[in-house]
């Protein structure tokens, strides 16, 4: 646990800033994980300069070298910014953490040359290494979280792209569902469908599950939820694309589809929809 005590670190950093910066940047660019293809030298230089300055200030202001404390807020913000941009640029987590860890050597060199008392040197070196370790780990955590949010966003976009709603005729919508129907997908399907019902004034929606590989109790529940939500808005649903195996599974599972009309094919469902809408298809006299 970091204790409250004075440190010479911040003064040393101020006095030897130029040297530390130069050595640090050199280490970063010469390391095997420097990834010069992904980041410009000026950007790297700028980030290093700002980080060193923020680190110095935090060391000066706080007597507790605990990077989770408020005094270290701007250091954390800076690291978050660096970490997030590195994540976007395509750096790996360790490549990103190297930004912090490679500062250890220059700082240790400076401490060694300035402090002769071995006891004091050991204490200062220990403080420095503990602080940078925590900051390095923090960098990795921020990196993880920002990658996760990128993945989440991409998943969302994929979901939205894969659930189109088609207008088959006035007042009749069709949803060809393709792929697994999990709760995240169902949520997107429901929102899209209901939105289209409002926009088009449709009163019938055909949910086609030809492209849904498996129908288990959960999938059935998701379908029934979608049907229920559409009905609350005045639209009836027809479920089509029920393969014989699916029909067997549904009966086997004891799923109650009594309130929903079901058809084997989209074409059959469309015919039912037209009948309900009081429409028919007639041959045009030659």
């Amino acid at each position, binding site marked *: 646990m970091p204790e409250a005590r004075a440190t010479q670190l911040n003064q040393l950093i101020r006095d030897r800033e130029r040297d530390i910066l130069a050595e640090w940047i050199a280490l970063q660019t010469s390391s095997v994980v420097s990834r010069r293809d992904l980041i410009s030298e000026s950007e790297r230089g700028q980030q290093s300069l700002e980080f060193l300055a923020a680190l110095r200030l935090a060391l000066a202001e706080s007597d507790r070298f605990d990077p989770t404390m408020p005094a270290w807020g701007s250091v954390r913000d800076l690291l978050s910014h660096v970490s997030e941009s590195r994540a976007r640029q395509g750096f790996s987590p360790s490549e990103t953490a190297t930004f912090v860890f490679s500062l250890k050597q220059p700082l240790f060199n400076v401490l060694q040359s300035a402090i002769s008392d071995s006891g004091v040197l050991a204490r200062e070196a220990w403080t420095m290494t503990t602080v940078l370790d925590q900051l390095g780990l923090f960098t990795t955590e921020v990196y993880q979280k920002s990658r996760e949010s990128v993945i989440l966003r991409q998943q969302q976009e994929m979901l939205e792209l894969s659930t189109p709603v088609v207008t088959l005729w006035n007042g009749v919508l069709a949803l060809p569902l393709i792929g697994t129907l999990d709760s995240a997908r169902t*949520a997107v399907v429901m*929102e899209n469908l209901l939105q289209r*019902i409002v926009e088009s004034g449709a009163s019938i929606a055909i949910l086609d599950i030809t492209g849904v590989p498996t129908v288990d109790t959960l999938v059935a529940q998701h379908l029934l939820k979608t049907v229920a*939500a559409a009905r*609350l808005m*005045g639209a009836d649903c027809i479920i089509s694309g029920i393969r014989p195996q699916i029909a067997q599974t549904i009966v086997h599972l004891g799923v109650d589809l009594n309130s929903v009309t079901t058809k084997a094919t989209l074409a059959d469902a469309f015919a039912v929809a037209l009948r309900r809408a009081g429409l028919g298809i007639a041959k045009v006299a030659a």
Partner: protein
Amino acid sequence: MERIPILKMGDCLLVSIQVDMHDRLAMQLQDDLTTRIAETAARGVLIDISALEMVDSFIGRMLGNIAAMSRVLDAQTVVVGMRPAVAITLVELGMSLPGVRTALNIEKGMELLAASMGAPGGAGVNGSAVD
């Protein structure tokens, strides 16, 4: 205390809920509607909830009750205008309002009412006999 206004249009009653109702107001509406249906021998009730940003189990139950009570009084009820977010939430909550007929908006609701009111069993009856 404030009440939700009930309009009479022919032999239909029209209610448009515009406020975030507290429970007592909802119960009052239930009572008022039932009374008016009986008083006016209305054959249809249209409840417009397009302004409601939320329907919880209490309001859901109120709507179900109104539909059931009107049926006993030989009137059809249609609830119109439920918002998508509300429908999604209501289903997740576990309510599907089984005895309640629904339509997208007032226009479609009136069409639905007209169709169901014109059905046999209701033809030509407005309470009073011919002479």
